[in-house]
């Protein structure tokens, strides 16, 4: 069994359950793979091999001493975690110098639920600083390289998690998605990524960026694997007042690919000038494939789409400016040596935060400041209502909405670093989902002429992750794109 790291989650769990392999063996095979490809990819900020082997040994011990039916669902399965989710006693940097030595005293609920289900933690993955970015180039630590072409970015902000799964360094990774930070890197790296409904998954222990938009999401190679993890992390958490008390369905994905009766909307506003030809071509082909499986394809309109970008960048930065006010060098994080209180605050923040984080704090502070609040933040919140209504009206007629994930495939490292607005435009197709709070699922549907993956997005009504997973599962049962792996 030389290629353990190519296994799907379900295959790996089956082999573990049958006793064909031990968790230590699976974990070691991923650690070996990391040792081989991580020097080129740089997906992890912190690796936790000792912790992983210790957890794997406990998992094997538990399996040995208990009957199968008493064992937790994911016992012995290795995963990676984006370095914005807290894991007790393991450094959590958020990709920022200001948290370089921060050791969380608690564990995020999503991570804890997976630990309770028996997983093994391989390490904490690279991210744009405080999850602010679309390329992972804003990390204060390193630039992650796209496994398909290392001169290109993996997308962001969860680029480390996406690259780790794409490169076979982990079968599953957790990420976070405030404006596309799971779906866009999933698309750039040729894997499958889910942003659940806002309120579906606890954010306790997720270091906050834009609180009305943040969701914890999942990366894997297939919808089928995502469903296994989603079932474990979804559901009400008393520690997060925004998590909703709505039952999580057991997601049963079978071998039926007949989509007769399903209506998929295609919004004309998402096929615009500026979108790469290869992206449009592959997404249109995938939409035809859904039609060939029996789905009815309906042209729809989401008329306020063009406003999503400015609305997002005013609301997210306003919320960020408030959330990041907590970094003052008093309770945790980098503290400047200045001896007066205000100077210490200003210098701790001025030196501790990187350029994009300061830019967003400045923009958000401006949008909230006296004299500009109504014109910027207030108006953005009203237009957000219109964007939300677009989706509500569309979902009266369709079960899901199909779009590209991003207007381009993975761009080159350094291509957008001097032009923030061009970088922000990479998110235009993913931002509306966060503004409306609906779920979105990204999955690979082909390659461009450079051999870079193209991703498609399906969006669904609130709390209908199951519909999206079923549709993408049907697509993946009848196509091969999700099985392609980069040559490393």
């Amino acid at each position, binding site marked *: 069994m030389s290629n353990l790291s190519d296994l799907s989650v379900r295959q790996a769990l089956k082999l573990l359950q049958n006793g064909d392999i031990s968790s230590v063996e699976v974990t070691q095979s991923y650690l070996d793979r990391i040792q081989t490809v991580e020097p080129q990819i740089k997906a992890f900020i912190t690796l936790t091999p000792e912790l992983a082997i210790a957890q794997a040994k406990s998992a094997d011990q538990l399996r040995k001493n208990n009957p199968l039916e008493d064992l937790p669902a994911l016992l012995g399965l290795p995963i990676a975690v984006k370095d914005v989710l807290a894991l007790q006693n393991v450094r959590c940097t958020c990709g920022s110098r200001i948290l370089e030595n921060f050791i969380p005293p608690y564990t995020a609920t999503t991570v804890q639920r997976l630990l309770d289900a028996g997983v093994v933690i391989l390490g904490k993955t690279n991210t744009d600083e405080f999850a602010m970015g679309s390329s992972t180039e804003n990390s204060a630590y390193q630039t992650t390289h796209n496994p398909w072409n290392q001169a290109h970015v993996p997308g962001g902000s969860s680029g480390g998690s996406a690259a780790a799964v794409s490169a076979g360094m982990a079968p599953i990774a957790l990420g976070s998605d405030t404006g596309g930070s799971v779906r866009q890197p999933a698309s750039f790296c040729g894997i499958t990524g889910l942003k659940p409904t806002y309120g579906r998954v606890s954010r306790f222990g997720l270091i906050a960026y834009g609180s009305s938009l943040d969701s914890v999401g999942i990366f894997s190679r297939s919808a089928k694997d995502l469903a296994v993890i989603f079932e474990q992390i979804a559901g009400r958490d008393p520690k997060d007042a925004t998590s909703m008390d709505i039952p999580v369905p057991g997601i049963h994905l079978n071998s039926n690919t007949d989509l007769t009766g399903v209506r998929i909307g295609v919004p004309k506003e998402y096929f615009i000038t500026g979108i790469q030809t290869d992206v449009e071509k592959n997404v249109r082909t995938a939409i035809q494939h859904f039609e060939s499986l029996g789905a009815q394809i309906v042209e729809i309109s989401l008329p306020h789409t063009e*406003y999503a970008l400015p609305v997002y960048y005013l609301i997210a930065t306003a919320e960020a400016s408030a959330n990041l006010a907590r970094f003052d060098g*008093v*309770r945790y994080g980098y503290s400047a040596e*200045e*001896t007066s209180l205000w100077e*210490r605050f200003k210098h701790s923040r001025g030196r501790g935060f990187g350029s994009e984080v300061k830019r967003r704090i400045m923009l958000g*502070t401006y949008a909230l400041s006296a004299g500009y609040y109504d014109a910027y933040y207030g*108006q953005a919140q009203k237009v957000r209502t219109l964007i939300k209504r677009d989706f509500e009206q569309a979902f009266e007629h369709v079960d899901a909405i199909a779009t590209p994930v991003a207007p381009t495939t993975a761009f080159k490292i350094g291509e957008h670093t001097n032009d923030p607005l061009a970088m922000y435009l990479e998110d235009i197709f993913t931002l509306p989902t966060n503004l409306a*709070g609906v779920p979105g699922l990204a999955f690979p549907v082909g390659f461009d002429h450079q051999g870079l993956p193209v991703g498609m997005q399906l969006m669904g009504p609130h709390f209908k992750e199951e519909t999206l997973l079923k549709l993408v599962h049907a697509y993946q049962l009848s196509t091969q794109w999700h099985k392609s792996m980069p040559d490393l």
Partner: protein
Amino acid sequence: MQLTIQEVEHIAELAKLDLSDEEKEQYREQLSSILAYAAMLQNVDTGDIPPTASVLPERSVLREDVVQEPLSPETVLQNAPHQKEQQFKVPIVMENGQ
């Protein structure tokens, strides 16, 4: 929409960010262009449209008021850059007996 350096300094003061002269100029240019782009929102008629602060239905979230084991003082202070006698230590806030 062109911000002045004075406006950039005012925002930086509100945000408690120490910025270099180079950063101030860079943010002046970049924020000006982002705000110019955002100005398209002024064209949307939102006369009777309510704002959305959260997509969730409005509701109160309550829990039983039960005493639980808190984090220990050592744990709470484990990341403190400066501490003294089990407290976070900060520079003097008010001087001259104010």
